[in-house]
């Protein structure tokens, strides 16, 4: 061994020794950040559930800890009934969402159905609609007494009567509104899947249906389960739909129950916190179940080999899939949009008969004029856009860091990071909002009262959604691609920058877009963290709704939908640009 080689042999281990602490330091940093964002507020929530006091006001009295609140809620039959209703409504809604979202993704990504671009864009519209507005739109359509669909059917002499103020009504609305979540996950996975696997099945003589059942769907199982879990837990935390559709039938879900506890005078936050902990247990079980199902299997579908997704030629059947997609769009997009338009432009929502529905004198811009006369409207739009961008950027970076560490590194503590990241998914926004307030109000540097505290709350609250969305993309990238970069002398950061990030870019863009949308819509944590100068759209929308003004609520929702629609169009284009620039796809 010559001197140069000898010095190299010594230097390399030394350098490795020097850098051995880096992964541990990196994990420590992530755990510190997550402790601030997740563990600290969650601890405040648990303290709240175990005491009868406001920890900020009365301080921490650990000697007074008791399970009294839990005993109160566990022995309350109404809590049991609300829990059962939640599980039925959200479980049923998830089945509907998975059925629709998965079919929809397959039609858009893997078939030659005409008008796919239109179907894909329009199908995402429900995602822009705040749940409260979705509930209102469907109550306008499907109320047993005044529903437009019932009115039209009666006029046409059709023996049809729909009542959405029921459990099946809630399941239906939950299902159609959360189908886009499943679609987002499964469409991304289908796009990234090497079609040669399906071609192999076809060559082996498998029918199209058998190929889908035995190759396609099993390969994207992580995405299906992630989408399913996400839509289920998001539904569990939704207040708007059950508030509008469940309340008239006295159907209480956990969220409406919790909201009532926080809104009553005096508020019962400690009881609400105890109910929230029950919800956390349910969600925690679902997350554990997901990991149990996925553990020990490989779902890698993106390897170093170039491929071009090949749409399945459906022949004449493509018109059937088109017709089905159109029916879906009619139900999910057109009908509720018509209801919202009517509500936004009609002076009052009392519709005496069908001719009155088409009476032009009943319509005008009055709700929009009134809405923009209120200076808080513009303030809230500007603030929401700012906080949405901050949340998307900060949350996107953090989620990528966490997703990469958990799914692709061997850093110590990555399992702990994964578990901490998942916690917020289980806590309803209405309760975690108070926990954020209790936890962060004392943070120095004037954080409280700024848009940043809202953004941090959103980053923390939606971290599980964002990380899950990203991890699905990351899990599909074969390790051999990174190994190739390392062999060529690239460091970890260089490999991430040149290999992982470009390949995962559609997933990153989708995750950041999702984060932006969720941040714009988030109500629960905004309610307690907004200040006089940081009013956001979700709070303003609730203000209009609680003011009993459905017209302005609908008008404001339309404005929000248009803003989000523009944003999604832009990101879609960016994402497509990214796809074109991807080294894998260009070979």
């Amino acid at each position, binding site marked *: 061994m010559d001197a140069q080689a000898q010095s190299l042999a010594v230097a390399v281990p030394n350098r490795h020794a020097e850098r051995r602490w880096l992964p541990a330091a990196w994990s420590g940093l992530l755990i510190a950040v997550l402790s601030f964002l997740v563990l600290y507020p969650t601890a405040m929530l648990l303290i709240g559930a175990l005491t009868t006091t406001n920890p900020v006001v009365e301080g921490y009295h650990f000697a007074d800890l008791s399970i009294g609140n839990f005993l109160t809620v566990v022995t309350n039959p109404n809590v049991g*009934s609300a829990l059962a209703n939640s599980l039925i409504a959200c479980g049923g809604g998830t089945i509907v969402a998975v059925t629709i979202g998965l079919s929809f993704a397959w039609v858009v990504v893997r078939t030659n159905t005409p008008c796919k671009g239109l179907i894909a864009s329009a199908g995402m519209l429900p995602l822009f609609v705040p749940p409260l507005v979705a509930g209102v739109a469907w109550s306008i359509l499907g109320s047993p007494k005044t529903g437009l669909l019932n009115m039209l059917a009666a006029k046409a002499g059709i023996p049809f009567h729909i009542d959405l103020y029921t459990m099946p009504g809630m399941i239906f609305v939950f299902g159609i509104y959360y189908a886009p979540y499943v679609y987002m996950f499964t469409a991304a996975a289908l796009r990234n899947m090497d079609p040669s696997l399906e071609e192999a099945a076809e060559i082996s003589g498998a029918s199209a249906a058998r190929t889908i059942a035995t190759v396609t769907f099993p390969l994207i199982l992580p995405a299906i389960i992630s989408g399913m879990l996400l839509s289920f837990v998001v539904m569990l935390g939704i207040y708007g739909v059950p508030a509008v559709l469940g309340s008239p039938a006295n159907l209480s879900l956990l969220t409406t129950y919790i909201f009532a506890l*926080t809104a009553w*005078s005096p508020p019962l936050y400690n009881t609400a916190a105890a109910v929230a902990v029950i919800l956390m247990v349910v969600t925690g079980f679902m997350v554990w179940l997901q990991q149990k199902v996925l553990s020990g299997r490989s779902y890698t579908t993106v390897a170093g080999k170039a491929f071009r997704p090949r749409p399945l030629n459906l022949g004449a059947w493509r018109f059937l899939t088109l017709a089905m997609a159109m029916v879906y769009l009619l139900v999910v997009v057109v009908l509720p949009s018509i209801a919202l338009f009517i509500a936004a432009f009609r002076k009052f929502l009392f519709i005496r008969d069908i001719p009155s529905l088409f009476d032009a004198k009943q319509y005008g811009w009055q709700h929009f004029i009134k809405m923009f006369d209120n200076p808080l409207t513009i303030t809230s739009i500007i603030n929401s856009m700012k906080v949405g961008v901050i949340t998307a950027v900060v949350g996107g970076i953090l989620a990528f860091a966490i997703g990469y560490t958990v799914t692709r590194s061997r850093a110590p503590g990555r399992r702990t990071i994964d578990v901490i990241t998942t916690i917020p998914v289980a806590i309803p926004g209405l309760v975690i909002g108070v926990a954020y307030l209790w936890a962060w109000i004392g943070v120095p540097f004037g954080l409280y009262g700024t848009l940043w505290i809202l953004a941090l709350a959103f980053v923390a609250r939606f971290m599980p959604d964002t990380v899950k969305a990203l991890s699905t993309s990351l899990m599909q990238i074969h390790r051999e691609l990174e190994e190739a970069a390392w062999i060529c002398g690239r460091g970890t950061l260089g490999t991430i920058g040149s290999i992982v990030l470009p390949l995962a870019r559609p997933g990153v863009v989708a995750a950041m877009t999702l984060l932006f949308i969720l941040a714009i819509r988030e109500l629960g944590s905004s309610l307690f963290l907004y200040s006089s*100068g940081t009013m956001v759209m979700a709070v303003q929308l609730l203000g209009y709704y*609680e003011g009993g003004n459905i017209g302005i609520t609908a008008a404001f929702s339309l404005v929000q939908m248009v803003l989000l629609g523009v944003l999604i169009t832009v990101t879609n284009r960016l994402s497509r640009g990214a796809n074109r620039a991807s080294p894998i796809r260009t070979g």
Partner: protein
Amino acid sequence: MKLSRRQSIASLASLGLVARFGPARAAKPFTPDPALVAAANKEGALVLYTASLTEVVQETINNFNKSFPGIRVSMVRASGGQLITRVRSEAAAGKLEADVIDHSDRGQSKSIEELFADYAPPNAADYMTETLVSPKLWPTTTPAWCIAWNPEIVSNPPKSWMDLCNPEYAGGKIGQVIAPSGGTTWTRVMFERQVLGEDYWVKQAATKPKLFPSSAPLCDAVIRGEVAMGPILMSIVYGKKKDGAPIDMIYGPEGVPITPYGTGIAASAKHPNAARLWMDWNLSDDGQIAAIRDQGNVTALRNPPIPTPAFDPKVNKLWTPEFGQFQKLHDAWLDDWNKTYGYRQ
């Protein structure tokens, strides 16, 4: 069909024609101390925490700014329970942003009395003592409960509170705001039990009313025809009626439950002069006239500066609960109410 006197009152044409306790007196124009105005203008801003509806408060802000355009009023709005939680938490952390705190539940305001500064308006002596619960808290707003219905679907409207127990309206025609929703509703349910009879809740619950979280969504449901009628705050019905919505209302002849707010200046106010000017103006004749004329509220002033819309002093009598009972009976009676109406708690 010949309309009864009360039904006639319900028509829009009669709004604003009748007086309250006695004849309305001449209004005294608001003439604040120029030094206070200068100091408030120098501060230039005011943060208001309120449990009232955003649109209603914005209207008040607009009226205030017509006289004092140099003061930018920012609002933080939350429901009663959420507002108190926020105020307590912010105050404990030394970060209370509010200059003025406005709450419909005087009991809740009283429970944080130490957070308010000493304050009395220049016309303090003009206010009814039975509406005051603390020398720091003042009734800037006094909403009143009325009975409202949709005339497009109700041919035989209710004429009294007792009519809301009529089996004719059974089967979900009546909407009812849940008792635990806040101070205004608690006042109404106290009125029902103390004035209309111990068995009033039982009789009304027998009609199977639909329950709503607050007055505003109930008002919307009446206008849409989801329910036909219900007890609603006049301040919510009044604006809709003025805009031409299909809704009519009367004040019940057995009494008109009112909820004087408990509003005060935060001891830690960063804009104390702007806060004082806001309170002085709101409690002045000018402020109360705006609340009566534009929002359909009543006033806690002994003699109203203008007649109260739809209120006939020969028929209608204001009713406000005794404050000791307002606090003492709260939990037990709400529990009773929840059981009687089958409301989950």
